[in-house]
């Protein structure tokens, strides 16, 4: 496995540990369905993925998954309260038009919400911005600003501030170092490259 592929699968294992076998899971921004496929195979979850892109939906369907092509908030509005045991928003939150709206809606339709994101407060990202004065580019964010989707460079401090302000309970949190593997216990906003949270209302 290349380091990048390994990075992409790291949160799979952690989320997999948080998921109850046989539960009902909604993945917002499911891409080609790799995470859901893993959860179906290892945890036998009843999975639904949402994505905007026809080709990615096609890939998910071919994997045997249930995939809904369309807007994630509009999709969630169609479900009753607590319809899903868990909603997952893995590496999607930084690209949302209305992150607060999505997170609050996800906490309505889901008993738990898992959010995973790259910490833009990680020291390398700070140094990158400070010294180069350019948009962060690394193994994860490979593109120039003009070929990138609009993104909110969210940090761990930003995210926890948001949750406190909205009265959202952080039931679990995992901060990983720059290698996205080693737990980070000291000053995570500076030293963690990746953050995972489990939220509840």
């Amino acid at each position, binding site marked *: 496995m290349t380091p990048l592929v390994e990075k992409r699968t790291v949160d799979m294992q952690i989320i997999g540990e948080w998921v109850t076998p046989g539960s009902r899971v909604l993945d917002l921004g499911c891409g080609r369905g790799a995470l859901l496929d893993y959860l179906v195979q290892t945890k036998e979850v009843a999975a639904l993925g949402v994505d905007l892109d026809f080709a990615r939906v096609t890939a998910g369907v071919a*994997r045997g998954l249930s995939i809904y092509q369309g807007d994630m908030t509009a999709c969630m509005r169609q479900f009753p309260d607590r319809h899903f045991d868990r909603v997952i928003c893995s590496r999607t939150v930084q690209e949302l038009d209305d992150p607060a709206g999505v997170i609050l809606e996800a906490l309505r339709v889901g008993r738990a919400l898992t959010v995973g994101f790259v910490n833009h407060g990680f020291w390398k990202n700070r140094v990158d911005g400070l010294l180069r004065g350019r948009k962060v580019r690394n193994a994860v964010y490979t593109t120039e600003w003009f070929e990138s989707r609009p993104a909110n460079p969210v940090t761990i401090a930003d995210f926890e501030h948001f949750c406190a302000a909205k009265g959202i309970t952080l039931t679990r949190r995992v901060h990983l170092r720059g290698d996205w593997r080693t737990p980070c216990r000291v000053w995570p906003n500076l030293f963690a490259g990746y953050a995972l949270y489990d939220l509840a209302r």
Partner: protein
Amino acid sequence: MTDPEEHEPVSRPLASGEVGLVAPQDFTCPGPFTFKSGQVLPGFTLRYETYGQLNAARDNAILVCHALSGDHHCAGVHAADDRKPGWWNNLIGPGKAVDTRRFFVVCANVLGGCVGSSGPSSVNPETGRPYGISFPFVTILDMVRAQKLLLDHLGVTALHATLGGSMGGMQALLFAIEFPAYTRRVLAMATTARESAQAIAFNEVGRQAIMQDPDWNHGDYPKGGGPRVGLAIARMMAHITYVSDASMDRKFGRRKKTTADGESYTFDVQFEVEGYLRHQGQTFINRFDANSYLYITRALDQFDLAHAYGSLAAAFAPVQAESLVVGFTSDWLFPPEQNRQIALALLRAGKRASYAELATDLGHDSFLLESEELYTLIRGFLERSHTPAVDFSI
């Protein structure tokens, strides 16, 4: 089956074979058939075609359901020099998205139709004359039940899938509702769970064009006769609802027929689009029966799953199949929203269902599109391995 280790969709060589020469067959159900209306027919005939081979387990069958003006001839040719193959030949064949090397494909002309199946143009054995409008009223459910009898006759023990667009999509959904243990996959495209007011309105204009034609004569007309003008107008109007503003403009624009002088002040055909529609109307009257048009459009109007079963949730409650619903952005007859609602209702009911939306500008008929994207989606859905549905509905 694809290698389970393989996570990216497999792109296969595009080269694919043709179904080739096919011959329609007739299935005659000898027993009485009671329609949803309560009316009874002593028996009925369905004309159908099959492609591919039924496997030993007799469970690799795919039922293709046709739309309003379609028929059983969905792939292959009837003679080596046929100008046109079956209406879904681009999708069905050896190596194609619906692969006849793997699947046993069945397609039947619907009950109430006019291409060999029992319908208003069939002869009533009691009178020796065509039934006309004394033929029992047909619903989509009647069409589905009749096709199930055909599948039983063919010895099909389970449907690998049922698929169709438009009215075919309605039939596919009903198969999963009425025969849940029998139907493993449903692929419904450009369809609806409830015929909308606009769609009923278009059907009514078509019916009025037919019934206001004096040659309709309350449905009593000789074979080959009847309301040719009315039926042609109905078809011209309906055809517009199958395409889109953008696709018509691209195809015809404001181009004029070469026979029309620049600014001629007559009502003869001037624009190419007029000539095209008239041609559509004329070819239609040579192959379709006006009374069948009345019956089938009425069946469409009656289609409302929520009303028939109490609610959409109740309608979908028994479904065991995995479903894929496909909407097309430019479809204004059965718009994406109506397709999306089918998938969402299935999901709310705890079923395995997907919704995909293809961006095209070809309107309702987009489901017949030659599109590698659509083929890949359909192939991926049909060829994925079936895992029994885990139902988490309360």
